[in-house]
């Protein structure tokens, strides 16, 4: 058995306009099932995936907030957010649905550097 890898899942996409946010979560849950160390990194419009109060039933889509809430059940706790992107959108940390770690640009580049595999969605 190989040692667990550090898999980083990265997304820059807003939710619902495309399926990227949901597809990212599906990979994350699968990584967890395979007992890999998985981290999520949300950049640019990707930070919008974490806004609270989502109500996508009105456009007949699954609620991402509910899926996000299940991440901790799978021991996925490393959720990293680009602090500059939050500022860019004028969103406060408290308006996010999950506990996250804010990173600056240098920390983001180090997170990428320290990962074994990076998957983009």
């Amino acid at each position: 058995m190989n040692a667990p890898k550090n898999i980083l899942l990265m997304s820059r996409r807003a939710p619902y306009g495309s399926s990227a946010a949901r597809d990212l979560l599906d990979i994350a849950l699968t990584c967890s099932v395979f007992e890999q160390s998985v981290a999520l990194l949300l950049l640019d419009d990707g930070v919008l995936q974490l806004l609270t109060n989502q109500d996508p039933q009105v456009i007949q889509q699954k609620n991402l907030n509910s899926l996000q809430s299940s991440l901790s059940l799978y021991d996925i706790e490393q959720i990293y957010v680009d602090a500059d992107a939050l500022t860019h959108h004028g969103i406060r940390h408290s308006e996010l649905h999950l506990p996250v770690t804010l990173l600056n640009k240098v920390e983001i580049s180090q997170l990428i550097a320290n990962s074994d595999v990076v998957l983009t969605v």
Partner: protein
Amino acid sequence: MIFTVVVHASPCQNAAPESALRFCKALLSAGHTLHRVFFYRDGVFNGNQLISSPPDELNTMRAWQALAEEHSIDLVICIAAAIRRGVLDSTEAKRYEQNQTNLAEKFNLSGLGQLVEACILSDRVITFGGQG
């Protein structure tokens, strides 16, 4: 080295599948191993048997088949993405009560676990994607 190639985009509207194909050929020429090509999201359309291309254009689906034939490559299509998008083999067609199928030969439907397993077993994983 052992590579896995991930494809997120459909052919025709997007150059990513063709780039992925060229990359696969180049890594095989260099003597590396291609553990798997994993098709996710709209990438599942790469395995649509019903695609026909004009004679002077590349048929990406057939090119994947030729690659698999020559080098015994594992072409895996994400089953959940494929069912939502309507790319079915006969087992799934039966399950979803469809009387037609369109999964091309050499491609196999399987779960996202095949992507994660490939990440574990490969030295390098590279994704070819597009907007959307």
